[in-house]
């Protein structure tokens, strides 16, 4: 046949109506979707300033990941970034914003308040205990507030998650439980190292440590 089946690896599937579809379109579409996330910033408290606005600025630079086109309208956005406490009065409005977004749509919840209610979980008459009581959340970024780097890790996790999608099953994603480890390192190695650290001597003898490593001469 033509270039589409000779050069693109993929499975040719019959569709109703007699046409064919190359499933490696999945990877092309996912690549495009993952690298041009247009965020709608739902910043309601301190996380919005400390994390969201900081990531948009030139020092941390959200544009490196293709997500800098912040949309103030839900109809043009496909990523909803929740940054801040959600209260009962606001929850129906948040739900409305989410439902106005075109599919495929993704949600990142950042910060303790957004994930669980945070410090306002007890004795509060108004705080919603977690954004996932209102809308489905794809990626949680913990912190109070999270560092911009944590947010980027969350964004990259979402990109990985998008790359597991298929146009045959819209909306179905295989959620990664662990980021990919570098070559030659296993989870058991990390666990062993952490156990050794925890079980080792917790306090350091400063004098002993200083004598073991004397000042270099000439200082």
């Amino acid at each position, binding site marked *: 046949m033509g270039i589409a089946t000779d050069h693109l690896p993929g499975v040719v599937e019959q569709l109703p109506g007699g046409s064919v579809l190359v499933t490696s379109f999945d990877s092309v579409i996912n690549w495009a979707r993952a690298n041009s996330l247009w965020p709608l910033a739902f910043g309601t408290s301190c996380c919005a300033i400390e994390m969201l606005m900081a990531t948009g600025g030139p020092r941390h630079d959200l544009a490196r990941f293709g997500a800098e086109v912040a949309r103030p309208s839900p109809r043009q956005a496909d990523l909803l970034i929740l940054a801040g406490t959600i209260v*009962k*009065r606001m929850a129906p409005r948040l739900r409305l914003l989410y439902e106005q977004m075109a599919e495929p749509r993704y949600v990142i919840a950042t910060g303790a308040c957004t994930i669980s209610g945070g410090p306002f*979980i*007890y*004795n*509060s*008459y*108004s705080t919603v*205990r977690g954004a996932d009581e209102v809308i489905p959340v794809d990626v949680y970024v913990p912190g109070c507030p999270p560092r911009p780097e944590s947010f980027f890790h969350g964004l990259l996790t979402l990109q990985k998650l998008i790359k597991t999608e298929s146009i045959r099953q819209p909306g179905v994603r295989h959620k990664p439980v662990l980021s990919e480890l570098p070559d030659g390192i296993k989870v058991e190695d990390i666990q062993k190292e952490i156990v050794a650290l925890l079980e080792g001597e917790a306090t350091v003898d400063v004098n002993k440590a200083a004598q073991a490593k004397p000042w270099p001469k000439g200082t």
Partner: protein
Amino acid sequence: MLPERLQSICELEDDVTVLEEGVDKPTVVVPCEHVASLMAALKHDASFAFLLLLDHTVTDRVDDGHFELVYQLYSPVHNHHLMVMTTIPRDEPVIQTLSHIWAVAEFQEREIYDMFGVVYRNHPDLRRLFLEDDWVGFPLRKDYEDDFMLERPK
């Protein structure tokens, strides 16, 4: 510890007492029935000229059984501050509105009504400000409880 030009406040109304201890700015305490007339005099008397009501807050003294109402006044003419305090009983929290003296009091009093359930007599539009209109109860009262709240584990 009233400054000199505020000394004559006590002559404006009966039962005005000056609070001396535990305050960091000139403070007077009045009975709740005299608040409205005292406030009108404080605003319109040229020697005081308290043209601004900066803030109006409430403390719920649940153990003593009363609400403590606090008004923060400021005069841009003379550049002096005054704090006016009064108490009303918790079981009958009614007081005269100040919205005819300072228009901003209308919203401050609506907020207090919303959170504490203090009823302002002659208020033009006493509705809830922040919470939904069908909310039951006044959440900033110390004895407020509802089914949604979680008790902090001891």
